[in-house]
């Protein structure tokens, strides 16, 4: 029985997505339990250079023109062939716009069990276990990955991407792709996001400022942190009312509801009208001079200090961590 752990690598326009490394880290843990290999699966066309950095023992590389860009139908067809041929122990896909398009289809086409929203895995003697996070993070579900083959879609948060990274390039095995006739989905074109103002409700990282910013000139400090993090700025009402940021950046009852991975609330007291807009955030980190500010009731982490003192230091450290 094949004890290998497959990770379906996600790449978009030449960039390997972070979730791939998270999955590789998880796969490493599972492989230690089964004694099998961590196998990264790359589908693409002329995409061999994507293997750099993948923390895998082996790469299976499926090359075909119709795999050049992701489409659900082509990926489903190619992967269904590969998985039914090799019958790996576990197949990890991202709980993303890519992975979710094919995981369920694979489950039905190959009659394989599928578990979603997995945050973490573990081994318990010969058992492989998963923990999934559902209901907006309020409920955890734990179970065993059944034999002989199980499918999983993973969310980030349980493993650090750097644990799935390796300087040692893995061995690459090309795999012949079956004929890709009768594909029903074709990519026509990519459309870049509009140059107009961003939609903060779609952003993953938000740097939000409140009255603690004190004046318009200080906004620049927050913008620098946002730039360093690849984040977008938004604000609570007093800042928008002053006209320092457009209303498209307002978070709260009269503005937008946001659901980022990380919401940095800087100098925001946390009045209910604001908090209403941020309860969908995965993690709220609050900085405020007032230890009794209600924002600390909803934040995961808090810092009691003046945001203006913290910003330059934090921005500098973030820049160092990202290498400029």
């Amino acid at each position, binding site marked *: 029985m094949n004890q290998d752990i497959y990770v379906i690598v996600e790449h978009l326009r030449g960039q390997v997505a972070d979730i791939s490394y998270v999955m590789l880290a998880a796969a490493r843990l599972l492989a230690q339990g089964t004694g099998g290999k961590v196998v990264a699966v790359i589908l693409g066309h002329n995409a061999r250079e994507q293997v750099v950095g993948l923390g895998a023992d082996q790469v299976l590389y499926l090359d075909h023109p119709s795999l050049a860009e992701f489409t659900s139908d082509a990926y489903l067809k190619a992967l269904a062939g590969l998985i039914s041929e090799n019958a790996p122990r576990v197949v990890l896909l991202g709980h993303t716009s890519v992975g979710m398009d094919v995981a369920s289809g694979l489950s039905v086409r190959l009659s394989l069990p599928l578990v979603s929203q997995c945050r973490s895995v573990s081994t318990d003697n010969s058992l492989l276990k998963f923990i999934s996070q559902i209901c907006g993070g309020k409920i955890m579900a734990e179970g065993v990955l059944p034999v002989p083959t199980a499918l999983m879609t993973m969310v980030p948060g349980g493993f650090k991407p750097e644990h799935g990274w390796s300087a040692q390039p893995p061995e690459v095995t090309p795999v012949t792709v079956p004929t890709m006739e009768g594909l029903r989905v074709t990519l026509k074109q990519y459309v870049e996001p509009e140059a107009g103002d961003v939609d903060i409700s779609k952003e993953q990282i938000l740097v939000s400022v409140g*009255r603690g910013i004190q004046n318009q000139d200080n906004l620049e400090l927050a913008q620098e942190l946002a730039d360093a993090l690849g984040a977008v700025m938004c604000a609570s*009402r*007093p800042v928008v*009312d002053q006209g320092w940021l457009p*209303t498209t950046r*307002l978070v709260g*009852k*009269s*503005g937008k509801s946001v659901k980022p991975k990380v919401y940095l609330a800087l100098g925001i007291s946390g*009045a*209910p*009208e604001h908090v209403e807009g941020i309860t969908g955030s995965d993690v709220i980190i609050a900085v405020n001079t007032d230890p009794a500010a*209600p924002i600390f009731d909803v934040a995961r982490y808090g810092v009691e200090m003046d945001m203006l003192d913290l910003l330059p230091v934090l921005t500098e450290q973030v820049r160092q961590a990202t290498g400029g």
Partner: protein
Amino acid sequence: MATIAFSQSPSFSKTFYSSLYKVIEGERIQTCLQCGMCSGVCPFGYLMDFPPGRMIAELRANTFDRVIKADTVWMCVSCYACTEVCPAKIPLTPGLMTRAKEELLMAGNIPSELQNALENSQRYNNPLGESPRKRADWAKGIEPEVKILGKTKQPVDVLWFIGDYPSYHPRVRSATRALAQVFNALGVDFGILGPEENSDGDSQRLAGEHGLFEVLAEKNGRAFGKYQFNEIVTTDPHAFNALKNEYPALGISYPVRHFTQFLAERLDQLKPILKQEVKARVTYHDPCYLGRANGVYDEPRALLKAIPGVELEEMSHNRNTSLCCGGGGGGMWLDGFQWEKAHVRLSEWRVREAVTTGASILVVACPYESPRFEDAAKMVQQAGQLAVKDIAELLVMAMGD
């Protein structure tokens, strides 16, 4: 030559016009003089494409669908200022503005914040979207324990109708607890519906959702019908208005008063326990739905005068000329929309007036007001020292606990 815009459906204007007669005294609209006083006194009249006076002009010209296509009716906060000044005594607020909002709502032309509040009201029986099960959580820890009628099942003298914001909003809850303290100090025999209480529905009604109002009223009516009590006392002028003026048409009729009226009647018992001096100059904001809409001006003032040390100074707009805080008629959920158009908040104007009186405390009697005025005070430069207190909170301060 200018092109005359033909209305797409002249019959729509006619149908709408005649529907207004169904409102009590609505047929007075036929006697509009087009004097423009309504549009002039309206706090947002200068921003509306069609302030009340012009709306009537469009109606008479059979071009009312132009009003429906514009969305500036949502600037109306149902403050009754127009109704108060109309020389022809047209019931403009209920008889025109609310009806116009109903038409816009039916057409789906409604700002998203308001949509949220209405959908929450349907699902959770309150516009804040809070769990109905937690409606009485504000009462935890109060001694003696607040009676929830569904649990105690005993008759009480007073059914205290709490309201949405007084139940759930963190700032307003302090005022609710204060009022409970006052009732307990006076030995009032009261009970509350707790999780069985639904939004009174008045603001939703004024925002154009009559169907929703009826659903909420019917639910409240069924809850009232289960218990025995002599009268209903409300925290909220909006609930007072609904229960007194709108519920009876649905067959739900009980004696009802606002808590300021209830307490004013008991001044003899109240005065002796107001022992602690509250040395402050205060000013009182007449809520639209207590004052203009229902004529209750003196009772809150009587309560304030009973507090030792309090010096009451009136703002230049007071009693029936009081300036709306902007929360009514759905205004509580139209802040974003109204800000976009106005870039000014009515609550800030009112706070500036309060500051001019030299008062250190702005006293309110409606649950929308404390959060709105406190918010506004942050933005008004000279309002740094201005405190906003509900009458009940001030009474508790004077009770000296």
